């Protein structure tokens, strides 16, 4: 009899609900790691190499905690990774080596890699890994799992967008968040059918709309760029989006699971060409990670009329550090304030809040000054 396996996957933001149903449709047990807390961080930091990227430490800590708590189960640890200039490509071999070194042997790592050259090896390897991930099922079950997971990710993102739209506009503080939590739980536990998910989504969007709020107010707009994992996982970026929203700012995040997948996996070539075109003169080469995206999105945000940009990066991230240096020039040339926040295990919440508060104050002042100038010119012309 084959051994019963339990799946563990890297937890990222609210998308864990989709991952969970992905494995449930395939008929596997699945354990979701807890959101980052002092316990997982401590485990991760003390077991990983000192200079390794912060997301690696976070994820190692989460996996370690799950493995420690369930010594009687056999795990398949899912690691989605690429092969490129970014260190993300070498996560799974290091997980395997470090966990073995710690004395665990009840696990196996399934790394789903993209296709990388040489092609004649890359394509078979990709399918081998894919089969290892989903196991032997009818093709229809596999497709269904991907489809449902995709829909759930989409639904959750719609809800999140609505939440960050409502928070700065709500009349009773906290009412939007309450509605969102309820809606998220309903999507999380929605039956695994496209129709059902659609229905729940529409219902909940309407319900969130009925939260008492003020329409037609002009708020300062802040865009978030940076490293995908830190940007998308609320437990590690200290809920930066929610904090900004409560400070009365319209937040827009540049990377979502859906557009990330679309850009990186489906329309790779167009995306890369678009980036090189926008970044011309600033960064003319592929450097992996999300460094190019950070620069491109900052420029695009300026063109869309945003008032400021915050770059979220884990300390020591290779592509983002490059972007950080170049962003200082972009900021100067395009006249848009950019704040780079690097996160590591020592980031304290109080200092962090002070910095974003100062940034938001500055943006509000700048906006007021601009509006004031416009008004005064109109008065003068009259």
């Amino acid at each position, binding site marked *: 009899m084959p051994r019963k396996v339990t799946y563990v996957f890297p937890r990222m933001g609210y998308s864990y609900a989709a991952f969970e149903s992905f494995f449930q449709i395939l008929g596997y047990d699945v354990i979701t790691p807890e959101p980052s807390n002092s316990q997982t961080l401590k485990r991760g930091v003390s077991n990983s190499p000192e200079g390794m990227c912060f997301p690696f430490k976070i994820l190692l800590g989460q996996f370690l905690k799950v493995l420690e708590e369930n010594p009687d189960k056999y795990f398949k640890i899912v690691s989605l990774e690429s092969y490129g200039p970014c260190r993300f490509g070498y996560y799974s071999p*290091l997980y395997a080596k470090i966990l073995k070194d710690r004395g665990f042997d009840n696990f196996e790592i399934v790394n789903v890699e993209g296709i990388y050259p040489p092609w004649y090896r890359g394509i078979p390897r990709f399918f081998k890994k894919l089969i290892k991930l989903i196991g032997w099922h009818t093709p229809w079950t596999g497709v269904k799992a991907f489809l449902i997971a995709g829909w759930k990710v989409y639904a959750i993102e719609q809800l999140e967008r609505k939440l960050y739209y409502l928070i700065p506009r709500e009349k009773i503080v906290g009412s939007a968040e309450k509605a969102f939590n309820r809606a998220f739980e309903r999507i999380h536990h929605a039956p695994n059918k496209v129709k059902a998910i659609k229905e729940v989504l529409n219902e909940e969007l309407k319900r969130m709309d009925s939260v008492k709020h003020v329409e037609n107010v002009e708020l300062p707009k802040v865009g978030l760029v940076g490293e995908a994992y830190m940007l998308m996982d609320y437990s590690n970026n200290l809920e930066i989006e929610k904090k900004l929203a409560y400070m009365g700012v319209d937040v827009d995040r540049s990377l979502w699971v859906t557009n990330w997948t679309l850009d990186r996996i489906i329309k790779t070539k167009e995306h890369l060409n678009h980036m090189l075109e926008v970044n011309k003169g600033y960064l003319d080469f592929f450097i992996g990670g999300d460094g190019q995206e950070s620069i491109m999105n900052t420029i695009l945000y300026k063109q869309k009329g945003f008032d400021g940009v915050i770059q979220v990066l884990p300390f020591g991230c290779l592509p983002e550090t*490059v972007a950080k240096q170049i962003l200082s020039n972009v900021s100067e040339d395009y006249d848009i304030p950019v704040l780079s926040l690097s996160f590591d295990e020592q980031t304290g919440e109080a200092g962090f809040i002070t910095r974003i508060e100062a940034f938001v104050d500055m943006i509000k002042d700048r906006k007021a000054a601009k509006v004031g100038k416009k008004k005064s010119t109109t008065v003068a012309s009259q």
Partner: protein
Amino acid sequence: MKIGVPRGLYFYVYYPMWYGFFKSLGHDVVLSVPTNKDILNLGVSNAVDDICISVKVYHGHVKYLLDKRNVDYVFVPRVVSEDKYRYTCPKLAAMPDLIKSAFNKDSERILSVNMYMNQGKKPLLDAFGKIGEKLGASVKSVKKAVKEAMGYQEKAVKCLRKGHNFAEIVKNIRNLDKLFDEPVKERRYNVALAGFPYDIYDGYMNGDVIKHLEEANVRVVITDMLNPKLYKHYTKYMIKDLFWHQANVAAKGGMYYMDSKDIDGVITVSSFNCGIGAIYEKLLDLYSKETNKPLMHIVVDEQTGDAGLVTRIEAFIDLIRVKRGDGLVAS
């Protein structure tokens, strides 16, 4: 014309090639001075604060050359890949962009081109062709210059394989044949240095590891002296090849030295916040547990004090002396 070549990063790998090329075209190569406190300060003040010290030092060297009035161009190549499907770290792949962003006013004087190394002659001809065009050289002379450049690089690699280190090659660049004929000095102990050439050979940055070791009667071998064919099989231990050529050299070369009997110990040299260093150091850590070879990591940053490093190197030498049964250094 005078072409400035900064003494940093890939200077410590491809200098013979660049020297040969510019010399053949009839240009003077101006090197920046070996790293010193002023260069480091120039670099630290011009680069972003969380980047690794090697890149900061490189900024310093570029600034030093840009400040020299009589240098017409400063050569800042973008070394994209060093083997088929083996590339360089994102910071190095973005080097010309970083330099242009840091020294915006002087961006006209920066000579940059994408280079693909060790993949035959064609990519090199393309790259050097572009430089030649900018310098106003004819296609024919560029072809001749590339041939000469490759000849220089081959000679340098030959010297490396024989056991001469790169610092000697830089010193004897005019007469590499003579260097090749010189015998390599044998010493009582052998210690291997694993790491990126630009961290190992920059004496100011790493507290002169090589000099201190040689004073203690240790012969220093370095991972770039190895022929890549020797350590091919370590891919299996690493599960998957690393994406970066130099990291592969450091990791696999380090493992090769750990397995070889005549090496007494391995020291890795890397710069603080060099992300890739973290990976190969961990791999070597785990491997040293299996082979029981002494291993020490030296991580340098701009605040590293010389005294602390010397103490650590001395302690390491004591360790290998005791292992050989020679006892501690008489104090």
